[in-house]
């Protein structure tokens, strides 16, 4: 039996950050991870293929700093990449930091409108980031309304930022943030690939279509850290390794390959955990990187109020993003792309309407026949070359289940779609990997294999994340906290949920 000040259950991005933050505050911390390697969803991969997560755009400098990790490490700064929206006629368009361009380098007519829109969203994103860096304000609220959000922004002391926005822009912000991306984007842009790219980014990982309410929030969320997208040097594994180093530097004990089978409670206070291999580890503080349903199961339903259990059960977490990794026969460039586009983020979303249509089958538990794709070309440490693709919509609850046949179909659809825009790609593919949301759920415990462990929808944000009454990380018995993507502010390779939870746990313990 070992004794710690705190135990972190699960070593995903958020568990690692939480552990390091606690360790740096002098706590004796143990991070227990079921898998043999850390990183959870971010680093999950099969047979040497690319990891689930492939790009950094939301990594929180604040979280890294509190975890004692150098923000400017090459791993993170990596290589900034442009976005290319693929077109079937080969007339791709390129999104750069300073505008939108045609394949031939000339400026796209919607460049200015796009820049203005993105600029506005980035400003809003900065405000949301301030909200994200603080635990949601206390107190109860039944719903997230515009008035409520305004109140919350005030409480969270984003007031200064808001004042800088000015009154009319502030009104616009509140109007925009809760609405759907389709309406907002098509107010300023005609439908087409520029609007399509924004729509695709707004629904990535979500069980929503561009016309679903709250989708603008998701887009702004992605832009909360400035919107720069990088492909980390050494891949997501290197990012995770850096976080692991951070945890070690904070004197955390790391236990990979160890499954927590029970969170122990005496009367109404946490006393430690039990592992599947029979160890008992003691600590008065347990932070769970798992979503609330799993955490409550590990703790036992008796420890939670019936209403809390009901809310937990009803948290919506339906994964819709599958990973399709295409192994390439060699290092040769992808057909149809210019050399400066070879590392770009490729988006297949020719219009906002296309994205909405892709969502329709998911409502009926079917996969999209014309999917929305985000793809990156990556090289693995063993020298193999891949197209790492996030394909939507591939609902976790697919009618008939994710049989081999269904997986093959998804791979087929993905290749067909990409091959249309990049003719000849098919010939370069030697192998395909399909990782469906239900596999992600099994491998990592993420409910429904959901990107954020819980849908980022208006009823599950801020003080309602993951559910009313548990938004401030404390969960049931004394000393138990949630610290994963399901908590405020949400997922992505970001680390704020873990960092906020650790700070909150420290504060409550005082």
């Amino acid at each position: 039996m070992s004794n710690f000040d705190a135990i972190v259950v699960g070593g995903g991005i958020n568990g690692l950050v939480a552990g390091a933050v606690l360790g740096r505050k002098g706590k004796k911390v143990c991070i227990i991870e079921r898998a043999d390697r850390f990183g959870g969803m971010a680093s999950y991969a099969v047979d040497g293929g690319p990891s689930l997560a492939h790009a950094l755009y939301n990594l929180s400098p604040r979280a890294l700093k509190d975890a004692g990790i150098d923000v400017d490490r090459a791993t993170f700064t990596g290589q900034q990449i442009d976005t290319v929206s693929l077109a079937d006629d080969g007339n791709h368009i390129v999104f750069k930091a300073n505008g939108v361009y045609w394949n031939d380098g000339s400026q796209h007519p919607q460049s200015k409108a796009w820049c203005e829109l993105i600029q506005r969203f980035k400003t809003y994103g900065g405000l949301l980031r301030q909200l994200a860096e603080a635990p949601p304000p206390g107190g109860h609220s039944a719903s997230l309304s515009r008035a409520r959000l305004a109140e919350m922004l005030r409480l969270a002391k984003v007031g200064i930022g808001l004042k800088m926005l000015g009154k009319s822009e502030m009104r616009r912000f509140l109007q925009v943030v809760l609405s759907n991306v389709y309406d907002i984007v098509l107010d300023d842009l005609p439908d087409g690939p520029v609007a399509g790219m924004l729509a695709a980014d707004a629904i990535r990982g979500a069980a929503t279509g561009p016309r679903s309410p709250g989708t603008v929030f998701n887009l702004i969320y992605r832009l909360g850290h400035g919107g720069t997208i990088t492909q980390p040097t050494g891949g997501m594994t290197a990012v995770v390794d850096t976080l692991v180093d951070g945890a070690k530097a904070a004197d955390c004990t790391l236990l990979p390959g160890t499954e927590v089978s029970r969170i122990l409670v005496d009367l109404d206070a946490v006393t430690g955990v039990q592992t599947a291999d029979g160890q008992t580890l003691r600590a008065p503080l347990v932070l769970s990187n798992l979503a609330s349903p799993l955490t409550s199961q590990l703790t036992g339903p008796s420890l939670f109020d019936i209403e809390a259990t009901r809310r937990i059960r009803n948290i919506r977490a339906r994964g819709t993003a599958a990973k399709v990794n295409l192994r390439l026969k060699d290092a040769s460039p992808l057909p149809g792309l210019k050399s400066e586009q070879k590392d770009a983020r490729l988006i297949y979303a020719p219009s906002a309407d296309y994205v909405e249509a892709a969502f329709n089958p998911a409502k009926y538990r079917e996969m999209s026949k014309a999917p929305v794709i985000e793809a990156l070309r990556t090289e693995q440490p063993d020298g193999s070359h891949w197209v790492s693709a996030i394909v939507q919509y591939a609902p976790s609850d697919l009618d008939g289940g994710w049989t081999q046949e269904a997986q093959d179909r998804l791979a087929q659809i993905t290749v067909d779609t990409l091959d249309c825009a990049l003719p000849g790609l098919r010939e370069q593919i030697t192998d395909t990997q399909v990782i469906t949301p239900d596999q992600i759920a099994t491998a990592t415990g993420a409910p429904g294999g959901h990107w954020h462990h819980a849908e980022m929808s208006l009823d599950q944000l801020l003080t309602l994340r993951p559910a009313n009454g548990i938004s401030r990380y404390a969960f049931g018995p004394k000393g138990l906290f949630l610290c994963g993507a399901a908590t405020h502010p949400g997922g992505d390779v970001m680390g704020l949920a873990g960092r906020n939870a650790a700070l909150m746990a420290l504060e409550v313990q005082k």
Partner: protein
Amino acid sequence: MSIFVDPKLGLIPSPFHASLAEQNRAHSWYDWAGYAAPSVLDSMEFEYFALRNQSSLFDISPMHKYRIAGPDAAQMLNRLVTRDIRKIKTGRVGYAVWCDEEGMVIDDGTLFHLGDDDWRLCCQEPMLTWLLDAAWGFDVVVKDETHDVAGLSLQGPTSFAVLEAAGLDVAHLKPFDLVKIEPDLMISRTGFTGDLGYELWCAWDKAEALWDRIWQAGTHQGLRAIGYDALNIARIEAGFLTAGVDFQPVHATERLHRGQTPFELGLGWLVDFEKGHFNGRRALLSKQHAQRSLLLRCDVEGFKPAQGALIYNGRKREVGHITSGIWSPTAKKNVALAHVRMPDAQRASRLMAEIYTLEEGKWDTRMARLTPVQGAFFAPPRARATPPART
């Protein structure tokens, strides 16, 4: 409570309806959980005195009954209710309350420990969805037995003799014991009258035969069928609370802050903070010493029933109201259950009830002094004697 019931549906006959209808000379029925239940059969006074001096039969089939069975039944129930049910042994019945996450009482009821991992909860309010929610994560099966199990309450000093005459030997049954006395019949020494009495439980389709059997056995014991009005007097004498009258089941309230904690209802003795977590425990820990009001049992000056009276501390300050008030024929005094806000409830020396009277078309009020008392207004030793007396 605002559950809409289509009046066209009418009321459901209880399994004893035929027998009750035959005796219901007053033709006075009321709606009890959708059933036609008698308020008075012929004369409330006769019925009441039969209950206290001989014996009475009251149909309790409309009570909600839930079977909770499975390996985790005790664990699930212990998380549901505030008391430690591990102390209710097999073959015993326990009174319990359960709360929402804010520590407000949802309902009270009786828990029958039928066998290993096998329980029945009997209560006033519909509770199935709540129990299903409460069962999530536990290896238990919750079954609504409301319409499967008929119940008959036999209460009064000769009730033991009536059972004996019916060929049912319950001499060994102590208060809150239960016994499966015949394959189709369970008897528990329980009731809502504070008197010697039993509750008889059988399958719905065996109800009429049971009624006839008890009825015949009761001919020489002064057995009478009774309605709710008589029972209500007895239960107030016993100091028992009625849901919706003496407390507001919190799930049935629509206005904020109408719920009450067990401590506010004088049921703090049912709350066991040491047993581990139960629903509302964290809220109750912080609320246990912060009662907003108290439920008091009071002697009322004079003889006018104080039902519905407002309560003043001194002459002016309104501090509460009477939830149940009667002239108690047995205790020979005017008694009431009252809600009095804090801190006046604890400094109760000047509490006065403003009682409203209507006499031949003339409304009047009179002020009556309230004297809080501890315990029941009427608690005869015969209720506890084992074996019980025959008269």
